[in-house]
C-alpha cells in the first residue's frame, strides 16, 4: 500500500505492505537507518521513533499505522544545527558503542519537550525503555539534565 506520512518534516509516500514493520520500512524504504533493531520485541528501544512527538518502538508497529501521522527519526534532529541533546551526550561521555544512542536521544527529547525541568528520577523513568549495555546510564542521565539546565538558563536570560 501507499503509506503517506510526514517523515522528518517532509511529506513522504512510502510504498510498502501495510503489515510490514514500520522499522523495516523506515530502514529499507525511508533511508533512515539511524533507526536500529536491537531486539524486535519492544524491549530495548533502539528502534524508537516519535509518532506525533510520542516515542514508540517502530518494531512493534505496522507501517500502515503510520499512515497520516508525523514520524520523526533521529535523522530529523540531525538536519542543520544538531539538537543540543546530541552534543550533550557526547560531551558527557554518554556514548560508547552508540547502537542505543539514537533511540535514547529521541526518548530524551520527548521527555524534555513535555517536561523541561525533569528530576533525575524522571529522566531515569523516561529512559527506562531504552537499554544500554555499555555506559551504565549515569552519563546519559547527566547529559539530559545538563540540556534541561542549559535551556532554562537560556530562556531565563532576557
Amino acid at each position: 500500500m501507499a503509506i503517506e506520512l510526514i517523515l522528518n518534516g517532509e511529506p513522504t509516500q512510502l510504498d510498502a505492505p501495510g503489515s510490514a514493520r514500520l522499522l523495516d520500512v523506515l530502514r529499507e524504504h525511508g533511508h533512515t537507518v539511524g533507526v536500529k533493531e536491537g531486539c524486535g520485541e519492544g524491549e530495548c528501544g533502539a528502534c524508537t521513533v516519535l509518532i506525533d512527538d510520542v516515542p514508540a518502538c517502530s518494531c512493534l508497529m505496522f507501517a500502515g499505522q503510520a499512515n497520516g501521522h508525523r514520524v520523526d527519526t533521529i535523522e530529523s534532529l540531525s538536519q542543520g544545527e544538531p539538537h543540543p541533546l546530541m552534543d550533550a551526550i557526547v560531551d558527557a561521555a554518554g556514548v560508547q558503542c552508540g547502537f542505543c544512542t539514537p533511540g535514547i536521544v529521541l526518548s530524551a527529547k520527548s521527555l524534555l519537550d513535555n517536561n523541561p525541568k525533569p528530576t533525575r528520577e524522571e529522566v531515569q523513568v523516561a529512559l527506562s525503555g531504552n537499554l544500554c549495555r555499555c555506559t551504565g546510564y549515569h552519563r546519559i542521565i547527566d547529559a539530559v539534565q545538563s540540556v534541561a539546565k542549559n535551556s532554562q538558563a537560556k530562556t531565563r536570560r532576557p
Partner: protein
Amino acid sequence: MTAKGKKKQATGKATKKVQKKVQKKTANTKKVTEKVTKPGKKIAVKTTEPKVVTKAATRPDFAVVGKSPRRLDGPGKTTGAATYVDDLRVADCLVGYILTSPCANARVKSIDVSKARAFPGVHAVVTAENFPGDNQVGVVKLDQPLVVSDRIRWYGDRIALIAAIDRPTALRAAALVELDVETLPSVHDPLEALADDAPRVHTEGNLAAKMVVRKGDFAEALKQADVVIERLYSTGHQEHAYLETNGILAELQPDGGMLLRGSMQCPFYVQKIVARVLQVPHSKVRAVQTTTGGGFGGKEDYPSEPAACAAILAKVTGRPVKVIYKRDEDIARSSKRHATKIKHILAAKKDGTLLGAKAEVYVDAGAYLGLSAIVAERANASAGGTYVVPHVEVDTYTVYTNNPFGGAFRGFGAPQVSFALESQMDLLAKELGRDPLELRLQNALHKGSLSPTNERLRDEPQATQTMEIARDRCGWDKRRKAVAVHNATDRYNKKGIGAASISYGCCLHAGGQHLEGSASLVQVHPDASVSVAIGGAEIGQGAYQVMALLAAESLGLPVENIRVLDTDTSLVPDSGPTVASRTTVMSGNAVLDATAQITQRMLAVAAKHLETDLKHISLRAGQVLIDGKKSKLSVAELIALCFTQKVNLTASGWYAPPRKQWDRETGTGQGYSVYCYATMVAEVTVDTVTGLVTVDKVTAVHDIGQAIFRAGVEGQIHGGVVQGLGYAIMENLVVQDGKILNPGFTDYLIPTSMDIPEIDIALIEEPYDRGPYGGKGIGEPSLIPVAPAIANAVANALDLRLYDLPLTPERVKMAWDARELAEN
C-alpha cells in the same frame, strides 16, 4: 627502541624518583578532584566524578593524555550517521540464513534440501554434502563442523546455509528442509559429563582440557590450619546482550578472495577462519570491522562462524551475502559466559593468616572447545586471588556438554572463581569473628610477595591501597554499624554491605604469549592530519579515542587532527584479539612505536631548520618547542616542511612484551605482563518478602596505571559495575536440556536506567613503566569484583549466604523462607 623512546624512558625514571621523594613529604596532600553530586529523590541515584588518588604528588604534565576530549566517534553515533553492518547497502545483495538444529544431541540420518533449493527466490542451499570448501573450523581446536554432516551436538549446530532474495523467502525455504535424525541421550552438567558412563559429546571423551596450579603443598596447609572453609559454588551462563546483534557482509572479489565487513572484535580471526574454509591464502581475505554495537567478549571468536557461512554463500552464488541475526538467533547461537561449578577450600590460621587455597573448577564448555580452554586458564590462575597464599592447589576441568558453548566474556573466567573465593574470604572472616575487609588487608599481596601462582611480582601490588581507599571512601566501619542498627529494627527490608578485591592479569596469559604482539600504522598527511590504524578493535569502549590521544600527545598535535581508521586486516598484520583489557597497552604501545619513529624524523628536520641541537626540541600541543619554550615553528609547519624535504612521515609500529617464564605443568610462574588491582564495596537493600535485591551504591577503587582517556576509564567502570550487577542479581539464562528458554530481552533481563546504583569511583594512578604513558587496562577489572561484592553484601544483609549466581529474587526468597521455616 628509538632515541626519542630512550630519552622518554630516562625522563620517566627521573620523574618517578622525584615523585617518590615528594610523596613522602606530602603524603596527605594527594591530588583530589572532587565531586559533583546531584541531589536526587528516592530512586534517583547519583554518581560522583572519579577521585584521583595518585601516589605521586607531581603528575606528569601531559597536553592531552589523562584528559577527556569529546569522543571523535561521538557525533556520528548520536546523529545516526555511524554505519553498522546492517546499514551497509550493496547492490544485488542476498540474505544469508543459517538453519540450526532442533535438538541437543542426535545422529543425522538424512538432510533433504531439494524442496528448499527449488523454492522460488532461493539462490543456494549449502549442506555438508555439497560444501564447497573446508568444513572444519575452531579457533583453538578444529573440533567443529561449520555445517554438520552426521552428528548434532547442540542446538546451535548448523544444518544448512541458505541464500535467498530476502528473509521471508529464506525462512520459508528453511521450513522445507527435511531433517531425519535419531536423537541420542545428552549431557548438560559438567560434573555429570565427566562420569564414565556419561553420553560422549566427542568420541575422545568429554574432558576437553585440564589445567592445574601446584604451589607448595596444600596437605601441609590443612595440617597447620585452625580453620578450614569448604563450599560448593555454582554460576550460571551470562548472555553478552550487546545491543547490536551479530552481522556480517561477505563480498566475493574478482580474484576469488573475499571481503568481509561486519560487527566483530577480532578481524584477524575472521580472516583466518574464512581463508581456511574457502581454502584461499590470508592475503585474499580482507576483514574490516564496521562500527560495532558492543562486544564484551561475545564478538571475539563467534563472528568467524557467521562470516564463514556468509563467505561460502557468497562464493556459491557469486553475489554479496549479508547475514544479520535476529535477537533470538543471536542469543541461541552465540557464546555465553561459562556456567561453572566450583569447589573451594580455604585454610587459615586462627589469627587470619591464609595458609592454603584449593579449588576444583568445572567449566561447562558446551559442545565445542571454542575459547573455553583459554578462558579456563584465567579461571585456573584466579583461584588464590589477590592474596598471599603459600599453598595452592587448583584443578580446572574444561568439559564438553550438549549445552550452549562458553566463550569470552568480560572477565574471562575470573568472575566465576572470584565469586567463589571472595565469598570464602567473607565466610572465613565470619568464622574468625573478623572484619572481612580487615582480613583481606591482612592477607593482601604486597611488595615482593609471591603471588598465588608463585610469581615474584615485578610491580608493586596496589591491593592494599585499593582496599584502604575503598574502606575509607565508603565509610566502611560506620556503614557496617548503620546496617546492623537498621536490620535490628526493620523486619522486612534488610540492608547489607560487602566488599570484594581482585587482581587482574592485564593482556594475554603466558599460555598465549605466542599471540601477544600488536601492530599499528600511522600516516601523517601534509596538512598535519593523521591516520592511525591499529589491530585492536573499537567495540564501544573508546579504544580509538585512546589511540587518538596517544598519537596526539606523541606527535604534539591536537586530538582533532587524528583519525583512527576502521580496523582492517589489510592495513596492519595480525595483532591478536581485542580482549584481556589489552588494547590500551598493546595497540597503544604499537601506536607510540610508530609515532616515535615519525617524531624522530620530524625533530631532525626541526633541529636543522631552527639551527639548534636535537636534544632541545620537543613537540607539544601544536607547537615545536625549544627547551620547553615556543619556537617560531608550529608542528603543522614542520610537517609541511618535512614533505617538501621528502621525509617519510609514515611508520608501522609493533609491540610485544618481554617473554614470560611460566611452567605449564604446575601452572606457576609469570602469568601476565602486569596486574590491575581493584576493590569494590557494594551496599544493598534486600526485600525479604519478594527476595528482590536492590544495589544502592558501589564504591569502585581501581589501580589503572595512568588514565589515558579519562572519561573512557570512568565509562568502563560505570558499564562494568552495571553489567556486573546484572550478572549478580538479574541475568538468569534458563537452559533446559541444552535449550535456551529465554532468548530475548522480554525474559532475559539486563539492567535498565531504573536498576543502577550510585557509583563512586577512585583511581590510583601509579604509572606502569611498560604501558603507553603509564597506562594499563580497565575493561574487565571493572566487572569482576561486582558480583562477589554484591553477594557478600546480601549475605551481610540476611545473615545468610547464597552459593549460586545469579541471586535472583526467587533464589533469595527461597533461601530466606527455608531458614525461617527451619528456625520456627
